[in-house]
């Protein structure tokens, strides 16, 4: 039982950390960024080379990874994304192309694979099983991240402006919001989050050019069924997908787990086109009317 909860939480953290960047960008700028996986790759590469080779402490490596990816986000925005605001379909195609290109660059850089980074902290033994302390930490981080983002979005001025822009972009602009600046800030935030996720997972996986694509399926599906609210939507989507995948993988194997997850996503989108965000909104409205 404990094992199942652990597997679920592991899956939840994985999907959340991958999806949160994509969801935020989609919710506020209307762009589907298929290159988010490659931001994670950049984060992982920074950590692999700085920590795995140069021996820099892991924490510093993560901070640097976030900084580098934030810069990469700005570059991507100025070069590509600036023309794609509010165009989810077109941006999906364009950023997918960017993703492929970056994957190839990543492959050329890493060749066989980037230098390995050991996952710190060792294991915790409970009963007859051992659990990676590091993975438990990642689970905690995913919750903390949601908490932080909640505070930022709901209690800060920036968060207020972001939420308004998400709801009615033109009106927000007419009230004095520099929407372009908001877009860049959001993309920087999302890239840094991608870099964070990529860096955090680097010790547990092999880092090759295709590192990002490992996360992309889950991130994209979570983003779609989460709907436009990056917090509530991503949280619920990650939760559901994690439950489905971890449960099915345990009893039927990884392949069925993957298929099951995708089928569930298809069903959800068919039944609730607005994703979980739309569902929650409608529920709140109904609750209030009573």
């Amino acid at each position: 039982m404990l094992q199942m909860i652990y597997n679920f939480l592991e899956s939840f953290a994985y999907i959340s950390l991958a999806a949160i960047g994509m969801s935020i960008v989609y919710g506020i700028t209307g762009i589907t960024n298929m290159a988010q996986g490659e931001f994670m790759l950049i984060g992982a590469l920074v950590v692999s080379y700085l920590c795995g080779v140069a021996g820099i402490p892991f924490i510093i490596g993560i901070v640097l990874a976030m900084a580098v990816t934030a810069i990469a986000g700005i570059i991507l925005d100025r070069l590509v994304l600036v023309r794609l605001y509010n165009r989810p379909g077109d941006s999906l195609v364009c950023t997918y192309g960017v993703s492929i290109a970056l994957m190839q660059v990543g492959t050329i850089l890493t060749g066989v694979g980037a230098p390995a980074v050991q996952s710190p902290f060792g294991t915790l033994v409970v009963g007859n099983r051992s659990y990676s302390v590091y993975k438990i930490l990642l689970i905690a981080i995913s919750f903390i991240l949601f908490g932080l983002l909640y505070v930022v979005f709901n209690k800060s001025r920036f968060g207020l402006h972001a939420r308004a822009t998400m709801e009615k972009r033109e009106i927000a602009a007419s009230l004095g919001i520099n929407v372009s600046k908001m877009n860049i800030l959001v993309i920087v935030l999302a890239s840094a989050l991608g870099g964070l996720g990529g860096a955090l997972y680097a010790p547990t996986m092999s880092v090759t050019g295709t590192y990002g694509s490992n996360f992309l399926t889950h991130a994209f599906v979570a983003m779609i069924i989460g709907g436009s609210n990056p917090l509530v939507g991503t949280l619920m989507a990650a939760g559901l997908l994690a439950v489905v995948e971890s449960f099915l993988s345990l009893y039927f194997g990884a392949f069925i787990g993957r298929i099951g997850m995708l089928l569930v996503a298809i069903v959800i989108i068919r039944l609730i086109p607005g994703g979980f965000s739309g569902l929650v909104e409608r529920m709140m409205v109904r609750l209030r009317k009573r």
Partner: protein
Amino acid sequence: MLSTKKLVSGYGKVPILHGVDFEINEGEVVSIIGRNGVGKSTFIKTVIGLNGVMDGTIEYLGNNINKKRPFERAWLGMGYVPQGHMVFPNLTVKENLEMGEQISKQGHSDDKYTFIYDYFPILKERRNQKAGTMSGGQQAMLSIARVLTGDPKLILLDEPTEGVQPNIVDSIGDIILKINEELGVAILLVEQHLGLIQSVSQRGYAMDKGRIVDSLSREQIDNYEYIKKFLAI
């Protein structure tokens, strides 16, 4: 304060306005009247910058603002109250108001909120309620209050009475007059509702097919027989 000369704009490549000459001075309440589809909304959207200028000029406070983006025009003191009110539905009433205040030189001040709640008591009552759950009339009030928090010099009102019940229309008229008298804010009102036009306008323009076809004095506005030909009555 604000003037347009031979203003042409529209959507995509299709012009809706075909050369509009317009003027409003500080502290005036000026209406643009006309039926549906004549280009009133397009005009206001072009003034605030949500539509681009295809030809002609817009001058505000002595400067050509053709190329200024909407948020820049807001910072120059324009407040835009869109057609359909367009409150932020998931933000609370208070949060909606806070969205307006960033362009004010004072920023956030409790005094300001006191006087706004004074003007709009219903908003004070519901300040923690999600804006999307309010009635049409209440949302209309909110959309006006929202631009007030920014201490605007010029308010652009696009058909504020749409979807609003008659007694609230009267309140809106009262508020417009109050804002103009007590705060000295210029008001550009685009409307079809005769009652509101007559109760607040100091002068006006009639629009048809994307052009100004007549300028209207106070007397002409009051004259039902004269004015009805510009409206769908």
